[in-house]
């Protein structure tokens, strides 16, 4: 039957963004024979798009900062839906992970006394983000890439993994995929697999994510029987480009606001002052004067509301646009030109300057930018054990965006890059330890044959529907029915439409041959995106409240009872089901951190 190329490793890591690279470095250092498999070329992963910085309580700018403050900010930003232990480990370990990057050659911006400079970001009490201008993600990715190459880790580029392989007990023992270049089948035997495949953005229409973000890891885990949590919690980043149409969704870094940029509506009003919720009222400036003084004196003044957590800002922008006070292309204005000198803007925000100049012919040192919410990140994901990054399926680990829990219902800016490092390392280490305690793996040819036949089926259907059309309809459905503001009837409609889309996706046809064929690649990615869409929609129906990145107009308030549960989605008898399960309970000594804060 099927012919395939075969490889055998202790640990196979799927995805070569920040989390995958960091996992590979650690697995290899732990002594495991490690392979890194990625869908694109090495060094192109979506991590390059992270601009603002990596959050770590180094205390270089504010000695008052420490892990407890970072932990508290993260939990509050996540509307307390976070896995407390993940948030704690993250806050504790991120400083060490940042210093380690420096040891591997990263060059962060400096303080006057030569240490790593830190910048302000929404939801962080102190200036906490280590950064390199506005290209921190590239710096992190390149540093880990160069480290991995230096360690001689084997990298398999442009390979799409379509299924995990499992032994009789259900434990993961490999992964099956296709080379994008030749279209040939490849099997990796592995004693442990780490999912580090990133996000799901391409399931929606307006997104800051690249083509790779099709939820592959989420789907692989789901199909292997793993639990997912809180998939309804997706983040719409408040500032995406809205014009020109081709750039729609592209990210505008939060650093613009951290460095003094403000939001205005068509009347020129700084409308964020009209949207300060009670939850954040104590720590937010209520006058323009106070907000403006904060940039210089953070001790005596409170931060301006433009720097509230992302969900708050995105919702406010959405309301302004709906109320007819938007910009000509359906966004609002982000203005730094009137507030900072051109030299300052160009030095602090070089890629933003470049991006607007090249793509929109807008000089951000002279004119305001037009921005609006764009799908940016999924907080929900594969359920993992905090300390080990182990999923609920033996031999399978997950780290980075594909894992759920760390960010609760909403992620703070800067906490993603640190998440990649902290949990990438932990996943790599536990996968390696697991692998070293396990004997050889056996690839089951029956599984290989079945998956291969299913994946190649679109070639048999020359008259089948074009996968691009099905993808567009999926994106439209999710954008309009499972978007930034949701309600029961639209969600139920989405659920129904997804059923139809499943049907259509199972009948798509592709032209041409297997060699580097994007139509076929999309047909394969469609399966993953549909799996994600089901989980998100079911979770969103079941979470009858508004919390963080999940907003229900029919249940506009948070429900304290629902704040204590995860929405768990999993595959049972070929269908995705959703159940509520209690969050792990935070120990009392950590609870006191939240009382003191009042």
């Amino acid at each position, binding site marked *: 039957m099927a012919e395939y*190329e075969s490889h055998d490793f202790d640990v196979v890591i799927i995805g070569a963004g920040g989390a995958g690279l960091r996992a590979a470095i650690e697995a290899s250092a732990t002594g495991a024979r490690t392979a890194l498999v990625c869908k694109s*070329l090495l060094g192109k992963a979506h991590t390059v*798009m992270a601009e603002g910085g990596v959050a770590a309580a180094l205390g270089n700018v504010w000695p008052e900062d420490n892990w407890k403050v970072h932990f508290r900010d993260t939990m509050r930003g996540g509307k307390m839906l976070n896995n407390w232990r993940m948030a704690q480990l993250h806050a504790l370990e991120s400083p060490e992970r940042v*210093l380690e990057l420096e040891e591997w050659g990263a060059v962060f*911006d400096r303080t006057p006394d*030569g240490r790593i400079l830190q910048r302000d970001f929404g939801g962080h009490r102190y200036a906490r983000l280590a950064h390199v201008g506005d290209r921190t993600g590239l710096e992190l990715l390149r540093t880990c890439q160069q480290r991995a190459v230096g360690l001689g880790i084997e990298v398999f580029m442009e390979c799409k993994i379509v299924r995990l392989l499992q032994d009789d007990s259900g434990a993961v023992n490999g992964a099956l995929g296709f080379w994008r270049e030749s279209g040939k089948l490849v099997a990796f035997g592995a004693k442990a697999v780490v999912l580090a495949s990133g996000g799901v953005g391409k399931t929606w229409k307006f997104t800051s994510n690249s*083509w790779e973000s099709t939820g592959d890891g989420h789907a692989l885990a789901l199909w292997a029987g793993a639990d997912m949590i809180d998939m309804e919690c997706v983040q719409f980043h408040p500032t995406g480009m809205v014009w020109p149409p081709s750039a729609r969704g592209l990210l505008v870094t939060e650093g613009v606001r951290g460095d003094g940029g403000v939001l205005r509506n068509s009347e020129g009003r700084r409308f964020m002052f009209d949207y300060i919720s009670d939850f954040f009222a104590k720590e937010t400036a209520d006058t323009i004067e106070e907000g403006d003084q904060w940039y210089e004196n953070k001790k005596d003044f409170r931060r301006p509301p433009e720097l509230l957590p992302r969900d708050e800002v995105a919702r406010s922008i959405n309301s302004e646009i709906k109320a007819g006070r938007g910009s000509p292309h359906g966004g609002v204005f982000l203005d730094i030109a009137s507030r900072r000198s051109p030299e300052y803007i160009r030095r602090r925000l070089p890629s933003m300057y470049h991006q607007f100049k090249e793509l929109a012919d807008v000089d951000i040192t*002279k004119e305001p930018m037009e921005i609006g919410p764009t799908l940016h990140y999924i907080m929900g994901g594969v359920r993992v054990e905090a300390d080990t990054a182990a999923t609920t399926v033996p031999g399978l680990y997950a780290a980075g965006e594909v894992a759920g829990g760390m960010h609760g219902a909403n992620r703070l800016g800067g906490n993603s890059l640190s998440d990649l490092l902290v949990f990438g390392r932990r996943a790599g280490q536990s996968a390696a330890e697991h692998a070293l305690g396990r004997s050889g793996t056996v690839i089951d040819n029956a599984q290989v044959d079945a998956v291969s036949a299913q994946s190649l089926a679109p070639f048999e259907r020359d008259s089948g529907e*074009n996968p691009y059309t099905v993808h567009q309809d999926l994106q439209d459905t999710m954008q309009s029915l499972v978007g930034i503001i949701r309600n029961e009837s639209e969600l139920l409609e989405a659920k129904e439409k997804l059923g139809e889309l499943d049907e259509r996706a199972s009948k798509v046809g592709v032209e041409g041959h297997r060699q580097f064929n994007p139509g076929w690649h999309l047909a394969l990615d469609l399966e993953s995106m549909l799996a994600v869409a089901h989980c998100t929609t079911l979770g969103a129906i079941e979470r009858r409240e508004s919390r963080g990145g999940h907003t229900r107009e029919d249940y506009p308030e948070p429900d304290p009872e629902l704040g204590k549960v995860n929405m768990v989605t999993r595959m049972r008898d070929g269908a995705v089901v959703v159940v509520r399960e209690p969050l792990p309970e935070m120990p009392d000594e950590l609870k006191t951190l939240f009382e003191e804060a009042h």
Partner: protein
Amino acid sequence: MATPTRESTASTARPEATAPTPPATVTLRLWRGDEAGGEFRDYTVENLGGEVVLDVVHRIQAEQAPDLAVRWNCKAGKCGSCSAEVNGRPRLMCMTRMSTLDVSEPVTVSPLRGNPIVRDLVTDVSYNYAVARRIPPFQPGPREPDGTYRMKQVDADRVQEFRKCIECFLCQNVCHVIRDHEDNKPNFAGPRYFARLAELEMHPLDVLDRRELISSDLGIGLCNITKCCTEVCPEGIHITDNAIIPLKERVVDARYDPIAWLGRKIRRRPDPTPAKVAASFAPAAKTGEVISTDAPTRAED
């Protein structure tokens, strides 16, 4: 300047507002084929305005040629995946606006000429990854007594210029040393990697000396400073002036003045791990064993 008044918003839309009526359609002349050969084919689509070349390629893919092979990731000039030649000029397709091109005639988009073709606009860039594996990685000296590394922003700036590189390999593609003399490849790192080497050599914390390698195996002497690489760099890195020329000078220093170099490095007490570094230069194998599902199942350890 201005708070967002009506005027400033109008200026946001300026390119569309003042341009003469654009043609209703645009035609891309795309190279279709693989290593065995191919041809240019014309694809005409509606002219939507405000698009970059990559957008038009994507629409052609979605509407007319679903199997058209093209690499891209970020669509924001940050990942360096979408390199191609647009009307013969090496560019990032995602950062080339249609409005900057003459669309009254077909716009030609072809794969990078310096690399072997895989399919359509996708080329084989493995040479670059192989060079990357030959460069001895960063090796820092000891930390300060307080556990930190200190560097001044001005020193960081110098290194950061090179670390902006998005690895689009456009510079590698235009360098005549590689482009016109395939047989130079084993002995020549190319401009992207001279920038990388310059970054390491100028890194205030690095203690390794790579100068012998740079002059012998990595062939900096073959570069005759034509500056073609600098001209195409989308990140505006001054590859020739800031990386290659200083490296050439350092290599000469190494030949004639070893004492000066020792003086520079000796204060920093390199930590002794070169064995590990050397072991890592073996290129990664890509092809594994090919087996058939008909064959008996193999148990492996």
